[in-house]
């Protein structure tokens, strides 16, 4: 159930975030068709390309996520991919995310979706408080610790429902602990 909810939410985010670059491309193309000012063409083409690249990144990240559901996943790669996917969301909620990798880890197949659920929990938690926020995510082997502090430097309490969804996704492949504004994700080693 948590997987389904997460995937549907992710699809909604993807659809939403594709709209902006698509909007840019649409208008730029229309302006181009109407006739550019001298010298404007290359600039608009550059802007259109920029928008297309953002769409490509979003699609690649999503594709990687849905391709690796039955294989071990490298945790840092999953975090990097998801961070790229959620970049606009983080900006919107004024979350400055810092990722630290002490020791990387090959997580079980549910790792990719669990990381997505973790980012969603981050966004959902930020929505309950006033930003800007500073978020920190540290990967240290099978343990990943996430923390979120508000503008005053106070730790923000994680949304319990969101944290629970992460735990539901991991099921037997890991566990989640949530206390004092920290969310700790412990992954099991993937089956050999």
């Amino acid at each position: 159930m948590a997987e389904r909810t997460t995937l549907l939410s992710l699809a909604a985010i993807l659809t939403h975030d594709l709209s902006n670059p698509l909007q840019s491309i649409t208008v730029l193309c229309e302006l181009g068709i109407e006739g550019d000012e001298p010298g404007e063409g290359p600039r608009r083409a550059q802007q259109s390309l920029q928008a297309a690249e953002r769409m490509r990144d979003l699609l690649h990240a999503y594709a990687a996520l849905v391709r690796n559901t039955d294989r071990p996943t490298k945790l840092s790669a999953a975090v990097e991919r998801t961070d790229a996917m959620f970049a606009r969301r983080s900006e919107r909620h004024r979350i400055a995310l810092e990722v630290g990798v002490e020791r990387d880890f090959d997580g079980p197949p549910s790792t990719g979706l669990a990381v997505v659920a973790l980012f969603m929990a981050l966004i959902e938690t930020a929505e309950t408080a006033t930003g800007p926020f500073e978020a920190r995510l540290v990967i240290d082997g099978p343990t990943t610790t996430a923390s979120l502090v508000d503008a005053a430097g106070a730790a923000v309490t994680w949304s319990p429902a969101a944290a629970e969804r992460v735990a539901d996704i991991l099921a037997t492949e890991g566990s989640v602990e949530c206390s004092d504004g920290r969310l700790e994700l412990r992954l099991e080693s993937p089956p050999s």
Partner: protein
Amino acid sequence: MTTTDDHRVNNSVLLVEDDPLVVHALALSLRKSGYEVTVAGDFDQALERFESAGEFDVVVTDLLMPGGTGLDLLKHIETQDPDLPVIIVTADQSVQAAAEAVREHAFDYLTKPVSRAQLLETVSRAIEHRQETTVEKHAQVRLQEEHRQLAIRHQKTAMLLSVLYDRAVEGILVLDEAGRLVDASESFVALVGEPLYELLDIDIRELFEPHPTEGDIQDRVVSLAKGPASSSHWRGEVTVYAGRGRHLPAKMSLSVCEMPQVDGEERTRYVLALLYYEIGYEQLSRQLQQADRLATIGLLAGSAAHEIKNELGPLLGYLTMIEKGSADPVGSGMIGIMRESVRRVHQHVEQILEPLRPRVRTRGAVVIGVSIDGILALLRRAGKLRRIKLSVEQRGDEDVVVHADKDEVHQIALNLITNAIDALGDGDGSDRGNIEICTWYEHDWGVLEVRDDGAGIAEELRARVFEPFFTTKGSGGTGLGLPVVNDIVRSLKGRVTLDTNGDRGTVVTVWVPRYKPGG
């Protein structure tokens, strides 16, 4: 719908969007169409621009942005400038988001990617709406100001009218279509001597005497109120039943006023009566009566002088004979004849002087017939009744006795009879015509009627013959006869009417209170 460039340099757009890609594309698109575009990258910046960058014609905003949502911005704008259109352009295609935007009075809700044409058409429509609203608002402000000014003017007018009502010397009456009193000015209330609440809604006939020729004033009011707009004014003479039993003549103007239709009520017509009266009328009336008596004396003096001359001729002859000693004045009886002649001269002089002597009027029993006989004798001696067929009739067995002063009755009868004589003309040397004088009792009134078959009075002049100095006799008339009759009758609380006598001539009828011994 158009995507071509327009010249909308004065139309400014606040574009709120956090994605630089979208900002660039939309701003470029709007600017290319002539709009001034101010960009805000988040909610706080949008508020700052909105507060500081002056007036925008339209706001185009994303739904999700750092610091707040497009709906938060919309709510804020609603409190500051409710007529400013806000267009939400979002990637959120959910029905809930759109419904909430509509609930918050968003002008439109567009989902990304929106085409340039759709964006420009929506922005153009929003600005048009903004301008219409602004025009309407200005018109509303102007109307409110005009309404305020009108209200002030109305208040001033109402105050002036109130002052007019309280202070005007003239009487002001408002009458309904049935001739009932709706309102009256202070001066009229004071004149009548009754409190206003006693006067309201009463029939106007209770306040005014019927006109000698035109009848009840109420009929005039009703016919004016129900008549065509072309005949919505009238001017004439009336007699007010003033306080303390006085009958006061006044000039009256009537105007029909139509109240505008209010709240679906039917239009109401009122008749506004302006009344001018001379408070010192009694004194004026006495002066008129005195002038009329002098005119009568002038009329009779000629014939008296002739009579006196006739007496003086023989007297002079007798005196000459006595002076020459040619006759015995006593033995011949000359002295007796001369004494009788002097007595007649004295009588003629007395007749002239009598009306001039100051005397206190005393009202009591006056037999109309006696006055008439005296007048006819006088007129006959003065040769005024030659070639006139005169009849005097007294209906009933008893003399008609009225409650008046004998001079008053004398002057009434004399004026009516001399008017009738004048109306007959000289008859070109043959019969001049007929005069019928009739008296009778009618309930509590003694009635005198003088009827002639002379030239009569043209209908359009009839209403004016009771005005002082108005005459139909040219230079031969003083214009005092009938006005004085009317004044005297009015002071006796009687009534006078003037009508035509069939095809020719005039009938004047006077009602004077019947004398009641001990009454």
